[in-house]
Structure formats: C-alpha cells, structure tokens
C-alpha cells in the first residue's frame, strides 16, 4: 500500500492559475516525444493522399518554379549573365529548395494551432509539439527535391562534393528560424486570425527581398550589406556555396545563425507564456 501511495505521489500534479513567464517544461516535452513522430507521420501520410502523382509533386513543384524563374529572371531580365559559368537553372533551384522549406515550415508552424484546434481544446499535451512537428513533412519534400537537384547538377557537369555534408547544418539553422518565427505567429494567429493573412504576405514579400530566384550579384555592392540583416540570406547563400562550390560568405551566415537563435528563444518563451490560454481563445 505504501508502495502504491509513493508511486501515485510521483505523478502528483498541482493545477493553479499561472501568470508571468513560465519555464519550458523540458522533461514533459521529452515524456511526450512520441507526439513528434505521430504528428509528423500524420502530416506526411495525409499530404499527398488521393493525388495521382503522390510524392512526385515534391519534385515537380521546384522544377516548375525553376522553369518559370529561369525564363522570367534569367532570360527576360537577363540576370543569367551574372552567374558566371554556373547555369542560371542551378542557381535558382539551389535557392528555391531551402526557401520553400523555410516558407512551408513557417506557414505550417504559424497555422498549426488553428489546424489542430480540435485536439487543443480536447486533450492535454505539451502544446509545443504542434509547431515543432510542422517541420517534418516539409523535410521530406526537401529531400526529394534535393535528389532532383543532384540529378540536375550532374546533368550540367557539377558533382556534389564532400561539403554537401554541411547541408544538414544549414537545414537545422533554417528549421530553427522558421519554427521560432512560426511559434510566435501561431500563438498570435490562434487568437487573431488576421495574422494568418499577414504571415502569408510577409513570406511572399520576404521572398522577393531574398536572392532566391535571382543571384545576390543583382543587388549593387553599395547596398549588399543590407542583405546580411535578412536572416534567410546567409542560409541560401551558404547552401548555394556548398553545392556549387562558390566562396562562402561567412559574415552573412554568422548573422543568420544569430537570428535563428534569437527567434527560437523568443518564440519558445512567448509560446510557453501564452499557451495556457489557447483552448479558451482558439
């Protein structure tokens, strides 16, 4: 009897009103780690259900964007002269891949609480897993597209080098950035849906400000330092340099990593502070 009593005390929970900043409950997050896989596999499986092409869409989408951007920016705007011996197609594709991962992860993380509101209002679990789980399904798309990019590179005579092993590091940085911003937005969108629209405009606008479909050389030397303050610039630049063996811009990467950490920390704290109200305001 004493055994069971101590056993029960081990699981004691005290519920009381919480105010102010609340620490992230890491042990609880770890206890519910199964949710990461549960939510991720759900999103991946549901993604291309009842489509004829299935996962081929993950390869087709970046290819189609690449064709469009190459025609408009490469040929019509004449930017293809700026990329040297590297074909414009490769430069664009190496920009689209990390960018669509970022945009997808940010969009999904931002809208994740609303998308999962039926669970949020009915059962308790660490809410953080909801935005955190929104990274996985985009990662699958990214890997498929990366494979296509490798094929395309080889077609143009570029062979992936050992430095490709740094891709996971870049992707981790992008993941932290997107989920950090995504957490902040999700906690706001859950209450005020307008910010869902705002988020989609911000990402569209942001894409034009980032050298995704054009090379960074388009921006004149005088103003290029401004790009360092774009948290995505360092990652996209780094990604291109790794794959296409161009010189690295370490300063911009340094800034990007800083922004990632900043947004991740702010996101975590803000999310944890307001999560207790989600079920009431959603």
């Amino acid at each position, binding site marked *: 009897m004493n055994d069971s009593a101590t056993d029960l005390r081990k699981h004691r929970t005290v519920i009381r009103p919480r105010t102010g900043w609340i620490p992230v409950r890491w042990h609880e997050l770890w206890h519910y780690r199964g*949710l990461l896989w549960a939510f991720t596999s759900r999103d991946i499986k549901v993604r291309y259900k009842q489509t004829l092409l299935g996962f081929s869409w993950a390869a087709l989408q970046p290819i189609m964007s690449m064709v469009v951007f190459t025609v408009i920016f490469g040929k019509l705007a004449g930017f293809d002269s700026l990329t040297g011996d590297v074909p414009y197609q490769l430069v664009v594709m190496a920009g689209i891949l990390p960018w669509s991962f970022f945009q997808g992860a940010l969009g999904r993380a931002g809208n994740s609480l609303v998308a999962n509101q039926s669970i949020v209002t009915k059962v308790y679990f660490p809410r953080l897993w909801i935005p955190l789980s929104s990274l996985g399904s985009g990662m699958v798309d990214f890997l498929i597209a990366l494979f296509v990019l490798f094929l395309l590179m080889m077609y143009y005579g570029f062979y992936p080098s050992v430095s490709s092993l740094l891709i996971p590091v870049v992707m981790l940085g992008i993941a932290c950035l997107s989920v950090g911003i995504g957490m902040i937005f999700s906690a706001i969108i859950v209450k005020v849906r307008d910010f869902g629209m705002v988020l989609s405009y911000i990402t569209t606008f942001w894409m034009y400000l980032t050298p995704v479909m054009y090379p960074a050389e388009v921006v004149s030397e005088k103003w290029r330092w401004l790009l360092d303050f774009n948290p995505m610039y360092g990652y996209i630049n780094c990604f291109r340099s790794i794959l296409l063996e161009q010189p690295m811009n370490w300063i911009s990467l340094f800034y990007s990593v800083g922004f990632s950490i900043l947004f991740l920390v702010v996101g975590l704290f803000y999310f944890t502070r307001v999560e207790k109200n989600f079920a009431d305001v959603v």
Partner: protein
Amino acid sequence: MSMIKVEGVSKKYQLGHIVSSKNLTNPFKRGLQRLTGRSMQEEVAEEFWALRNVSFDIQQGEVVGIIGKNGAGKSTLLKILSRITDPSTGRIELNGRVSSLLEVGTGFNPELTGRENIYLNGAILGMSRKEIQSKFDEIVAFAEVEKFLDTPVKRYSSGMYVRLAFAVAAHLEPEILIVDEVLAVGDATFQKKCMGKMQEVGKQGRTVLFVSHNMGTISRLCNRAILLNQGGVVADGPVHHVIKSYLQEGTGTGAWARWDDSATAPGDDVARLLSVRVCSEDGITSERVDIHKPVGIEVEYEVLKSGHVLQPNCHFFNSEGVYAFISIDNKSEHCDLPKELGRYKSTAWIPGNLLAEGTMLVGVALTTFEPQCVHFYEQDVVAFEVVDNASGDSARGDYHGDLPGVVRPQLVWETSVSQGKRP
C-alpha cells in the same frame, strides 16, 4: 488516499458582446461616430464566471458522476481537471496519472487508416508507442474492426468509427480517468460493452470522474455524484440522493410549473402556456403517485388568436432519458375545431398500473397539425415519481427485487397444461 483535491476553483471567461451608438467606450470610434454621423458598433468584454468557488475531494477508487443542466459548468470543470485550460483562482491537486476523454476520437484523421489512427490517437492521449503496440490486438478486438484496419476511417460507418475511438481510450491505464458523455454514441450493444469497461475500470481501484446527462447511466456507474448549478456545487453525496435533487431542480417546482408573466411564457402569438401540473384523481397537486392510481397532467394555456385548431400533447421520459410515449389530445370534445380566445385547461389521464416505478419527466407541447405548427414545446416541464408501496396487489406482486422497464402494466396471464399431470 485523496486522488483529486479541488479547493476553491473558479473560472472566468471574457465574453464579447456588441453595443452600439451611445454606449461606445472606444474614444476613437466615438470620435468617428461624431464625425461621420453614422452610428457605430463595438464589442465590449463582459465577465462570465463559469465556475465559482468549487471544492471537493475524491478518494481513490471512487466513481463520481458530475451532473447539472447545460451551462452549469460541467465541461469547464472537466477542462480544468484535464489541464486543457487554467483555473482563474483556486488550486487542484491530482495524485496520479490523468487521462481525459472529453470527446470520442480526438485527433482522428479521416484520411488515415484504422491502424494509423490507433497509433496517432494513442500518442495524443499520452501512450507510448510500446504501450500501444502491446495493447494493439486488444484494442482491435474490442472495437471489432479487424477487417477494416487498413481502410481510411473516412470510409468507416459512424458506429465503427466510435467503436475504434472508444477502444483506444478505454485501454489507457491511468489512475484517474475523466470521461465526458462519450457513451451517448454507438448502438445499444456497444454502449453496454463500454459501460462494462467503465465499471471494470472502477473496480480496479482507479478513480473515475464521469459527466453525463443520462441519469440511468450515472446511477448505474457511480456511487457518488456532484451536482453543479450556475458554476457552483449545490449537492454532493450518494448518487440517488443527488440525482433526485437534480430532477427536482431541473423541473422547477417539480409537480407544478407556471408562468406568471405571459410575455415570457413559452408560446407564440397564437397561444401561450400558463401552467402545467401533475395531479391525482381528486385534483391535488402531487409529486409522488401511487402506482395503482391514475395520474393527470393538467395543461393550462391561453389562446391569443382565434381560428386555430390546437391540440395539446404530452411527452413522457423516464430518468434514463428513454422516450416512454406521447399522448395527443385527439379524443376530447371539439378538440378538432378551431379555438376561440380564452383560457383552456386540458388534462391527460394516465391510468393506474401502467407506468413503472421511478421518475417520469414530462414535456408539454401545443400543436396545430394542419398545417403543422408547434406553438410551444417545453421539455422536462414537470416531473413525478411513481411509487409502489409493495402491498402485493401491483404488477410487482410479492417480488421485491429490481424490475427494469418503462411500463409495468398488469397483464392477464393464462396458463394451460397439455402434457404432464396437474399437481
């Protein structure tokens, strides 16, 4: 030991509420209104206390029913206990792992197969993958969906869907289980199975908190009940005692309901309800009725617009929510002729030796059938209790045990023997 200890818990909600023109508090909108001359609206927050100072203590192994009318605060209480939302004040101590089942199939994804949903739902409810794996076969067998495990659940019948969802939740093994009205779904056989499972959970020494509108289920499952009204605890004790006070509270005066102000009384511009009363043969209002004696339901209403054929009708439910029967006034004199202005009183007489023992809830309506129009329908407007004093001359005879059923008529029995010897 105490498993759930609730001390002075209250919950406040902010309700949005639109005011217009003169009562604007937003100075910007007020200015804009003055400038444009157009009347404006704004939303004003209003406080609403869903729970007020609720305290109780639940011991290990207790199965407790939470009852109360819609809006009494039952769901809010469950949401706080299952940590979905924070209380505004107070403190709760839970000693043990808690699982809450506030909805059947939380997180089910229609696109995923039965198998995939078992894992997903299990993870959301807090089970580890290993735990789900070890119970997988048991869950599938309980839900009776073996053949459809690899079919997306959107192709399931609603019965299959509910069975699978309940099965996953029923195989959780928490020390404290919080359940909200999930048994209201599924067919009768499955409901029975669920009830069995719930009783089993209680017998294993685990603590169960159960919300339902079905008094039959509550009284069968629980040994204790807590009655909430307007956010506060109004009764807490042995289940039958609490159910009785709920039924009396739910029906206002019990055997007699009346509306003094005809403007707020149920009804429309044709007719309004004045009063409903349960009475005995000698016209005395009575809450308790002898099973042998007839009982009358007297409906008084006022006709405000002449020229309509108005037929009162009564709807009878037992305490388990079973629809016992309906009776329509289509036999009395002139009942099929249009009614003139005035006050009318109609009484439906239920003969003695028809209803079973227990509580009967009565709904009263006034209907025009051609073309069909319901002028008012008041549910659970009065209630009465049928009592058998077991004198031996009722349908019960000399048997003193449990006699289920909605009706208990005295039937004529004939017995003949075709083979064998008479004693």
